[in-house]
C-alpha cells in the first residue's frame, strides 16, 4: 500500500498546483467602467479636483512575473471634467492642453519593479502636449476574484508640460503640482 499511495498524493498535489504555477493569471482585460483617473491641485490654497471620463489602457501583468509587466494608458483630454463648464472650455485651449493639436496624454511603462507587499513601481514615460518626461509611478495591486485592481497616485508638475502658459505660467493662483490618482481594474485572461 504505502509505496503506491505516495506517488499518487504527489501527482494529485502537482495536478492541483499545476494550472496555477505554469500559466498564472495574467491580467490584461481592462474594465473601463471600474476604472478611474482623477486629479487634484491647489488653487490659492484650496484643493480642487476633477477627473477624466474617457481613457483606454492596455496592460499585461502577471503577479508572478511583475518585471515582465507593461502598460500603456491613453487619456482622452477632451473628456476632462474640472467641475465647471467654463474651466473645461478654458483648459482645452492653446495655453493649457491645446487639445485640438494634442488630444491625448499617454503613459507608457518602461520597466516594472516589485517592492513587496503588493506594492510595485512602474517607471515610464509620460507624454502630454508633445512633451515627454520620465516618471515613476507607484502602484498597489489587489486581486479581487477574477479581477485585479491597480491603484496609485503620483505628482506631476504642470510646468514640465507647459500646461498653463502665458497668464497662467506663474504658480501663485494655480499650483504647479498636480496629483494624479488612478484605479484601473483588469480581468485575468486565460
Amino acid at each position, binding site marked *: 500500500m504505502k509505496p503506491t499511495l505516495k506517488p499518487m498524493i504527489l501527482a494529485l498535489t502537482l495536478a492541483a498546483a499545476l494550472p496555477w504555477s505554469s500559466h498564472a493569471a495574467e491580467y490584461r482585460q481592462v474594465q473601463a467602467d471600474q476604472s478611474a483617473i482623477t486629479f487634484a491641485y491647489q488653487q*490659492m*490654497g*484650496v484643493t*480642487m479636483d476633477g477627473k477624466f471620463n474617457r481613457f483606454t489602457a492596455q496592460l499585461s501583468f502577471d503577479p508572478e512575473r511583475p518585471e515582465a509587466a507593461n502598460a500603456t494608458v491613453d487619456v482622452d483630454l477632451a473628456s476632462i471634467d474640472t467641475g465647471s463648464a467654463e474651466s473645461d472650455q478654458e483648459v482645452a485651449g492653446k495655453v493649457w492642453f491645446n487639445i485640438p493639436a494634442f488630444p491625448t496624454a499617454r503613459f507608457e511603462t518602461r520597466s516594472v519593479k516589485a517592492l513587496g507587499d503588493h506594492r510595485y513601481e512602474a517607471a515610464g514615460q509620460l507624454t502630454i502636449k508633445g512633451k515627454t518626461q520620465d516618471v515613476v509611478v507607484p502602484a498597489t495591486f489587489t486581486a479581487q476574484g477574477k479581477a485585479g485592481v491597480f491603484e496609485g497616485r503620483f505628482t506631476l508638475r504642470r510646468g514640465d508640460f507647459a500646461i498653463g502658459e502665458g*497668464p497662467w505660467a*506663474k504658480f501663485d*493662483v*494655480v499650483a504647479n503640482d498636480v496629483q494624479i490618482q488612478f484605479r484601473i481594474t483588469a480581468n485575468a485572461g486565460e
Partner: protein
Amino acid sequence: MTTHYTPVAKALHWLIALLLFGLLALGFYMQDLPLSPQKLQLYAWHKWAGVTVFLLVLVRLAWRVTHRPPPLPEHMPRVMQLAAHAGHVLLYALMIAIPLSGWLMSSAKGFQTVWFGVLPIPDLLDKNRELGDLLQTVHLSLNLFFVVVLIGHIGAALKHHFIDRDDVLTRMLPARNLEP
C-alpha cells in the same frame, strides 16, 4: 437725552455698508470677466470679504437684540414706522441670506471657501452642477432685490434729512462733526 446710535452700532453700520458696496460692485464686475488668474483672485477676495460681512452682520444682530435703537421721530405716521421696521428686517434678512447663498453656491460648485486662504469653511453641500447653477441664480436674484431695497433705504434716509428735516440720518453719522 441721547438720540444717537451707539458708537458700536455706527461703526458696524458704516463698516458693513462700505464692504457691501465693494462686494456688490466686485460681484457684478468679476462675474463677466473671461477666465484668468485675476478672475480667480477676485473671486477669492469676494468670498473672503463676503464671509467677513456675514460675521460682522452676526455681531451686529447680537448688538441689535441687546440694544434698543433710538425711537423713530414722532411725526412719522404709524404705517411709515411699520414700513421702516419692515425695511430694516428685510435688510438684515438679506445680509444673512446673501452670504449664505454665496457659500452654498461655492460648495455646490466644488469651490471650497478658505477664508483668507487660511481657514477652510466646511462645504455643506456636495458637488452638484445643477444645484450650483440654481444657487448662483438665487445669489444673483437676492442681490438684485438687495439693490432695490438699498435704494429704498438710502432714499428714505435722504428724504428724512432733506424733506422732513429730522435727525434720522444724522443720528447714524459720527457725532462729533455734526453736533457741536
